[in-house]
């Protein structure tokens, strides 16, 4: 069945994705939010998209002056010279008047000329896009709430009957909720601003499907960039199942030949035990074999990590220089989960990455400011699985020794393969043990081996025999007399 609704570009690619193509033509959409959340900027993009396609666009401003809006638009590279602007904002002379009238209410004397001016403009221009900023000001021109609702419905209907798609802003605050407008409008967008990020949520989209949830966005020199939430189900690509070995024979024996494409592997262990080093070994080996690997580092500085790997013979630098290994440092609170997912997608879809390491889960949580990381990380891992990418998640455990726990973040359910590295004490010396706890695809070695990181690289020793309780951190030797 063919949809009867034509969509028109919103002027923001991320918003087009959220709306499944754009605003419904000849409909109206309310943009609400507190001051400074980007409502006007969203409208400027809407007008700009129309102008670029040769459409007639009208901006009706009831608050900000024409000159201010034109200057702000220019800051974002938006040229309003082809856009008709009806400036109904209070003029400066209003302030300089010594008296104001009190004989009539504003609705009695100002609504009519305002209406006449708008009608004149609409009938002369016949705009296909109208942006009203903000409609909350019309409330003061209506006698009461009932009149406001009636007049707004009639006004929107008038614009639509004249062929316009309408975007209108509303100032949401304690005094002006504009909740009644939400019932009137075909679509409602809510903008929110937080300390480090902003979100956009489509709260209503009459009769149409859309991408639900609060999507993060940024306002930069080029205007608004929206990062739609990652929907793993719409992404997939065919891939030939493959194994990504580490290149270290004994380690590959442990993992049953390596990490599988389209799976998530968690390397878990306490600080300094060698999780990143082990993960880098897989990444570099893949790069050496001609694949593209990506390391997202949320904690360690790139230069330090490269130096550390080079010292133990893992050729990170040459692989990075060859372009087959991308090392991307992610600063704390610099990206939202949606924004980070887009960076990952770019590496996977544009650069065909086949092995990705997120180092670490705790760092991801801090860097993205994600208080509940599970849904976003789950979506990201699911996406990588659908794209056939082998994913390594580095999970840091807070306890150095003692009782074994797979991960501290409650995300071990995400893992198809769970590799753990643990400090153990043997005869008064601290050693490291590495093992595989589970692997969904294929067999793996069920023994534990000693892990050493030396100047000669990663050494994985022979399996421990005649010992029990390694996972407690203090193993006991069996048949000690015989040994």
């Amino acid at each position: 069945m063919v949809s009867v609704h034509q969509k028109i570009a919103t002027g923001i690619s991320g918003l087009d994705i959220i709306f499944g193509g754009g605003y419904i033509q000849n409909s109206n959409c309310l943009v609400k939010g507190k001051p400074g959340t980007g409502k006007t900027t969203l409208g400027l993009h809407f007008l700009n998209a129309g102008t670029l396609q040769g459409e007639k666009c009208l901006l009706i401003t009831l608050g900000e002056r024409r000159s201010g809006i034109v200057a702000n638009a220019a800051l974002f590279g938006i040229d309003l010279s082809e856009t008709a602007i009806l400036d109904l904002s209070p003029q400066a002379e209003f302030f300089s008047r010594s008296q104001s009238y009190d004989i009539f209410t504003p609705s009695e004397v100002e609504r009519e000329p305002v209406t006449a001016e708008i009608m004149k403009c609409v009938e002369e221009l016949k705009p296909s896009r109208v942006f009203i900023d903000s409609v909350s000001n019309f409330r003061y021109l209506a006698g009461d709430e009932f009149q406001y609702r009636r007049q707004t419905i009639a006004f929107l209907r008038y614009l639509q009957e004249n062929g316009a798609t309408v975007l209108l802003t509303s100032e949401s605050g304690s005094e002006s909720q504009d909740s009644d407008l939400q019932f009137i409008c075909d679509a409602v967008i809510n903008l929110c601003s937080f300390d480090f990020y902003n979100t956009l949520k489509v709260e209503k989209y009459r009769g149409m499907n859309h991408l639900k949830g609060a999507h993060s966005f940024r306002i930069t020199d080029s205007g608004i960039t929206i990062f739609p939430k990652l929907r793993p189900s719409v992404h997939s690509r065919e891939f030939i199942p493959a194994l990504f070995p580490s290149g270290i024979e004994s380690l590959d024996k442990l993992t049953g030949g390596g990490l599988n494409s389209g799976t998530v592997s968690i390397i878990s262990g306490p600080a300094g035990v060698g999780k990143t080093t082990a993960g880098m070994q897989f990444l570099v080996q893949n790069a050496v074999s001609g694949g593209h690997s990506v390391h997202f580092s949320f904690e360690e500085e790139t230069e330090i990590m490269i130096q550390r790997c080079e010292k133990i013979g893992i050729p990170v630098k040459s692989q990075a220089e060859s372009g087959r290994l991308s090392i991307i440092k992610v600063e704390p609170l610099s990206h939202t989960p949606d924004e980070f997912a887009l960076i990952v997608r770019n590496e996977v879809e544009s650069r065909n990455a086949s092995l990705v390491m997120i180092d670490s889960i705790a760092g991801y949580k801090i860097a993205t400011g994600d208080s509940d990381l599970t849904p976003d990380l789950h979506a990201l891992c699911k996406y990588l699985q659908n794209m056939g990418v082998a994913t390594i998640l580095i999970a840091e455990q807070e306890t150095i020794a003692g009782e074994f726990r797979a991960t501290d973040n409650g995300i071990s359910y995400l893992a198809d393969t769970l590799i753990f590295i643990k400090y153990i004490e043997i005869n008064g010396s601290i050693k490291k043990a590495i093992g595989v706890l589970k692997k969904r695809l294929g067999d793996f070695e069920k023994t534990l081996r000693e892990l050493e990181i030396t100047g000669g690289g990663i050494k994985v020793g022979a399996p421990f025999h005649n010992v029990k309780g390694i996972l407690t951190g203090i193993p006991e030797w069996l048949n000690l007399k015989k040994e």
Partner: protein
Amino acid sequence: MPGKNVLLLFRNQANITVMSDVLVKNGYRVLSASTYNDYDSLIEKSGDPVSVILADISGFDENIWRRFQRAKDLSIPLLVISPRENLTMQKESISHGARGIMSKPLAVAELLKVLSELTL
């Protein structure tokens, strides 16, 4: 056909402006006074007499009653606009010749109806 003359006695210039706009748009001609002197000279105008007086009592003193009395003497209908419901003021106004009293803010439709009846 020329409209009827309405004389405004308002202290507030902004009220004169908006009231003039409303009345002119509805076919009236408007004369306005914000002082007693102006009022005194306009009310005595010959040739093109005042049909009705609209007086906003805000900002005027008790000398306004004499002006109301003069309007009554000349048989010019007088409509008084008061800031709020004020029984004393209303009684005074009526006793000095006001034909009607309206409280602010006015509804345009209601005002026009009253004016129309006063100028029949």
